[in-house]
């Protein structure tokens, strides 16, 4: 059954290889050139950094800042 262990571990290595392939792809595409901008990409004009977007229901009027 020893060959089977190598099949299993070969598969595990394939998983690792997909990760490394994705890493190479993203470095080539310049995904890591501007990390600050990437981190800010989840914000937009309506919900800019600084906008708190979740509250318990009925706990404020809608524009009131947090304490």
């Amino acid at each position, binding site marked *: *059954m*020893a060959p*089977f*262990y190598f099949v*299993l*571990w070969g*598969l*595990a290595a*394939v*998983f*690792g290889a*997909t*990760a*490394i392939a*994705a*890493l190479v792809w*993203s470095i080539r595409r310049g*995904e*890591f050139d*501007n*990390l*600050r*901008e*990437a*981190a*800010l*990409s*989840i*914000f*937009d*004009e*309506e*919900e*800019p*950094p*600084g*906008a*708190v*977007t*979740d*509250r*318990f*229901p*009925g*706990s*404020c009027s*809608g*524009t*009131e*800042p*947090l*304490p």
Partner: protein
Amino acid sequence: MTATSQPVPPAQDERERLTRIQIDRSCRQTVVWYYTSAVFWLLAGSVLALIASVKMHTPGFLADWEWLTFGRVRPAHLAAMIYGWGSMAGVGTLLWLQARLTRNRLPFPTLLPATVIVWNLTVAVGVGAILAGYSTSIEWIEIPPFTAVLFGFCIAVIIAASIRMFRNRESRHTYVSQWYLFGAIFWFPILYVSAQIFLHTPAAKGAVKAAANWWFAHNVLGLWFTPIGLATVYYLIPKVIGRPVHSYHLSLLGFWTLAIFYNWAGTHHLIGGPLPAWLITVGIVGSVMMFIPVVTVAVNHHLTMVGHFHYLKHSPTLRFVVYGAMCYTAVSIQGSLQSLRSVNEITHFTHYTIAHAHLGVYAFFTMVMFGAIYYVAPRLLSTEWHSAGWIRVHFWTTATGMALYWLGLTYAGWEQGRMMNDPRIPFLDIVRFTVPWLWSRSAAGVLMTAGHLAFAWLFWNMLRRRGAWLPGPTLLSWKRRSEPRMEGAAG
């Protein structure tokens, strides 16, 4: 008139703003269906869990019906929670996140809701088959093999939808959450198909089957639930508190180290088993290497939250998500230590392992999913949650219930392991020692189930739109110090 370049930025803004509502609305049917099904399976799984838990200290309970014997109820609980609750809540959140992060409408408006129906039928057939006595008796994959085809169909549609959204993405950057989500949807199918082949064909027999089993079972946690959970945390913490991730660099390091190390860890479940020592050592090395992604994620989430912990008082989403993120750190560090042979020889085959498993799937993943549903559902249905009080009840019952569960079984399991390693102690004495702690586990189960009922009640009222109506593009958005930054961003 030549300066017509001026109106362009406002037009873009308008489009971006409209798209966010449209994105959320486009997810409405599919994601609400996924969430509703998830909540149903959460309740069903809780009932099965309570029955199984009570049987541990009161073996005569419901013992006259063969379909409610422990050997069937316990795997049925697992299947309902893993494939019903966890995966369905996870897929709903995954699709919503993909749509938001790629700034695309959710595609396939008929095919994706169809996957919900197929998925539900599959889980129902699977859980029913286990209760009827047709379990495969392979842990984590007890549901009958033919269900793989049905899950395969659903996953194929979900992958197609994700790829389509990614190809049409309007965002220039691939956010860290997307890496995790792609990890989950590409690795899980390979994992699932390989496991089906290894476990249900003569490809693997005897002890080797155990290696394939635990490679699969551990990876369902590590490469399916963990990436979906972390993707959600990486999106929701910054979004709720309005502050970008402390170090985007660390977040990427965390993802790629997880991608490379996690899938080697599975064989630590077989320490002491009849397998080659090197095979298990590889698993231990993989588990210990997991310290790198775990510590990077923990440091990053903590530093993102620093100075904002008082928001926990005000945001239901943040409470659940931060509780989950902290438990991710705890469960992972515990897991790495537990994989060491010296620790494992005490904890293996004891209640300690059960506490550890629930710390991962419940305290981390389930709590993060609760947080996600609290954030996503109001945006899909344009309705506020109808009661803050019930949300608090949900949080405190599940949070304290989980803490009680973990403390009781961790202590009992450790002592149980030490006693089992001492040949002078009669086995029955060890069993008697654990009984009070098994009662504490049932009490914890009652608390958590009470929380689930509170949550189901809230969700039911959300579906009936009993809460306040929330119109407009800035759903639930409370701006703080936003004016100067907005100008800065626009300029």
